[in-house]
């Protein structure tokens, strides 16, 4: 059913349609609206046969999900940013134990400085955690990916994060088609756990594994994610059959057929990029787009195929490997190794910095002209940065960076809109 609704609410409805049995909730912006909505549904009886547990931390949220999943219940939680970091130990544990937990990550920056706005630092910090990560471009896709995620996770007995841009998607009211319960039931079978804590058949889960078998265990997790590379497109195809929509999959291209310059990105910024590309196409620039939906497993082959015919590519990412550069870009470059393609990295939108079309126009043109530095920081206030660097060169005790910069920029502590 078509609805004009908030992204978080739409996702909550989608989760409810997946008949979760245990939901762990701990508040952190910007995922709060999702679990709030689910909590209300459980309490009102709209979502029956579900335990909604208000835990005392994200670490507990993931731990409760570990317990409930191991005991055979379809388990869900949501988090973001610091919350994800606070549960990291349990995040790795859930994947290590092969528990098919689904978790929404409402992507948000990581402090310090504390910042509640969107970028991809949080989930990308968990790229090696053994979890799958799917990135939604729109709220419709966020809805659809969650439905696919349960099926994918349970098929492989591996946990999955569905990543959606905090605020930009979670708090956006837009048109979403919410499927019917019948449709979801037809697509998603009941949870049939691969192993379960059960007095009828006792097992010991979570053994200590020494050097003699640890590598094999880790390889098997890797092998599972490689299987996911085949399964994800299959599930997307099945999804289309049931729901009549293209959603999910590993990657998605836009106007890429004859593109000479390809823009690679993840998440909601793809919408803005597509608008810019349309405008540039009108002006005759051969620009195309590659959206990556499956960040983990990373579809090396599909990315290579999408890029191999262009002349250059630019990875625009909302994340920064401090001391190195791009995070997604590194993987993309790995995908095109040996092709001789020119690749650029653009770091944009950190901590909720708007990514306006104007900036992208300029950036893409420079990419097309191959005049970019290998790593570009989009809309960085070089003036403020350079002043601070200079101060630090001169004085070891130069004071807090953020305050200095605000002073330099002539801002009061009250934030500007936008």
């Amino acid at each position: 059913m078509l609805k004009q609704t908030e992204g978080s609410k739409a996702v909550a409805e989608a989760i409810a349609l997946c008949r979760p049995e245990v939901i762990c909730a701990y508040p952190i912006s910007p995922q709060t609206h999702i679990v709030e909505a689910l909590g209300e549904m459980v309490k009102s009886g709209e979502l029956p046969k579900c335990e909604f547990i208000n835990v005392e931390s994200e670490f507990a949220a993931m731990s409760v999900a570990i317990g409930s999943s191991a005991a055979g219940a379809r388990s869900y939680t949501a988090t973001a940013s610091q919350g994800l970091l606070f549960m990291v130990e349990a995040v790795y544990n859930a994947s290590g134990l092969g528990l098919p937990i689904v978790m929404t990550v409402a992507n948000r920056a990581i402090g310090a400085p504390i910042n509640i706005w969107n970028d991809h630092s949080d989930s990308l910090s968990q790229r090696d955690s053994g979890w799958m990560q799917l990135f939604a471009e729109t709220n419709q896709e966020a809805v659809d990916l969650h439905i696919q995620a349960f099926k994918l996770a349970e098929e492989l007995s591996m946990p999955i994060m569905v990543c959606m841009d905090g605020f930009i998607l979670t708090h956006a009211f837009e048109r979403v088609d919410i499927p019917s319960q019948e449709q979801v039931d037809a697509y998603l079978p009941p949870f049939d756990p691969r192993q379960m804590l059960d007095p009828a058949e006792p097992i010991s889960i979570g053994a200590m594994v020494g050097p003699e078998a640890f590598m094999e265990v880790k390889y098997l997790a890797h092998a599972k994610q490689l299987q996911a590379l085949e399964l994800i497109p299959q599930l997307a195809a099945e999804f289309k059959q049931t729901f009549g929509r293209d959603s999910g999959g590993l990657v998605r291209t836009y106007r890429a057929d004859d593109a000479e310059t390809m823009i690679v990105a993840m998440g909601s910024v793809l919408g803005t990029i597509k608008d810019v590309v349309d405008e540039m196409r009108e002006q005759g620039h051969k620009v195309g787009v590659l959206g990556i939906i499956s960040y983990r497993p990373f579809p090396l082959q599909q990315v290579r195929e999408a890029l191999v015919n262009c002349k250059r590519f630019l990875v625009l990412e909302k994340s920064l490997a401090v001391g190195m550069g791009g995070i997604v870009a590194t993987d993309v470059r790995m995908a095109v190794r040996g092709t001789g393609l020119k690749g650029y990295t653009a770091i944009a939108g950190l901590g909720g910095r708007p990514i306006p079309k104007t900036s992208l126009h300029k950036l893409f043109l420079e990419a097309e002209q191959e005049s970019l530095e290998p790593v570009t920081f989009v809309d960085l206030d070089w003036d403020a940065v350079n002043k601070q660097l200079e101060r630090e060169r001169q004085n070891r005790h130069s004071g807090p960076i953020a305050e200095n910069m605000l002073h330099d920029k002539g801002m009061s502590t009250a934030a500007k809109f936008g």
Partner: protein
Amino acid sequence: MANKPFAITLKPGTSLNNLTGSWRTARPVYLDRLPPCNNACPAGEDIQGWLFHAESGDYEQAWRALVENNPLPAVMGRVCYHPCESACNRGQLDSSVGINSVERFLGDEAIRRGWKFAAAAAASGKKVLVVGAGPSGLSAAYHLARMGHKVEIQEAGPLAGGMMRFGIPKYRLPREVLDAEVQRILDLGVTLKLNCKVAHIEQSMQDGGFDAAFLAVGAHIGKRAMIPAGDAAHIVDAVSVLRSMEGEDKPMLGRKVVVYGGGNTAVDVARTVKRMGAEPIIVYRRTRDKAPAHDFEIEEALQEGVMIKWLSTIKQAGDSSITIEKMALDDKGFPQPTGEFETLEADSVVLALGQDVDLSLLDGLPGLEIKNGTVQVAPNMMTGHAGIFAGGDMVPSERTVTVAVGHGKKAARNIDAWLRGTAYQPAPKHELAEAGNLNTWYYSDADKTVRPMLDIIRRQTSFDEVQGGLDETTALFEARRCLSCGNCFECDNCYGVCPDNAVIKLGPGKRFEFKYDYCKGCGLCVAECPCGAIKMVPEDI
């Protein structure tokens, strides 16, 4: 498990593949130690063994276990001076287990319920003559009969029981109790000939066709002391007094009776004459704590109004008075005269200075050795004359009923072996279970049960039994105070406290076994065994 995650998920209980027994440097082993009560029992009773059955309320089984060694529990429960209780480890915890009272309870219960001994073994075809129907003779007769031998007791007196009847007053041992236990022995098929004094043992054996003989004639001749006495002085011996109590003619001792001596017999006489209305005074040359009589007997006598002159000797006896001299203990604890005299009223003087044995039946018997008026016997209780064994008061020993009963049992076993042409080999003694071997934490605090005593007026005026018995509840309580020193009572502690589940419980009565495949040798089972029935032994590494 094939479909479960590799390595992270494991099958339950698979650690059984890991044999941790290899860690061990010492291993626990079960053992039996000799409980101190058993060790101290002159009758060789397995006290702990029969208490075990009493603990669960199975009194018949307890009685049967008891009479394996001693056919006279009801008697024993009254007259035994219970060295078992003195040795009892529980004495170091609170107070010793009231073994004697439980024994009496079992004995009385057996009489009340009419329990009979188990039938004798197959007849051996051998005949044994037992001379004397005292505790030793009756004990030997009982054991021999149960071993399948034909036994005849020849008793010089008119009734069976020996010193149990003629030496111990009724108020300590009611005669119906004695009669019942004697009868039960006779019921085994033992022949008792009363008023049948054996004049010559070889002759008697030959006449009766006996293959062996056990002599237990006792010591019935009262010792005399040299007391200057006038003609009118009335001096009798204690044994005669006590013996005459069993007949029609009660002794005529007058009102003031001086009893001379400090042993149990002296006390018995004094308490007896008190009950006859006289005023007894015991005169003893040493102090109360040096007196051979049991202190509780002295205490009971004092309670009943018996007077006692400690540190006194009789210097002279007249027709209605005696002169005593005060004594003082020297450095070595011996009494020495002080030259201080006192006169006491005395209608009669009873000498309780010990007894001698009438050895006339042995006259002319070759091979015998007599020393200090007693017959010398080998460790197997045989006299120097083959086939003739002796025991009880007539051989060198502490002269108590319990010792006598023990002699009878020991002699019977040896006679049996001798008759079969073998030698009796007693089972090797286990090491003693000492208090240090126990973990007494596991025993509940429980003070000894006090036996009821007859009220003082009736004690002074009647021959009713002074000390009562325990009722069933108190007997059970008392039995359960047993610590089972040195022998597993299946408390399951080893089975429970093993952190490695390395103890197998074999089921009731079957005790336990170690699983040495897993036992790491921590020693917890040893430390926490209440009764000291496990010990650590170094591994041979």
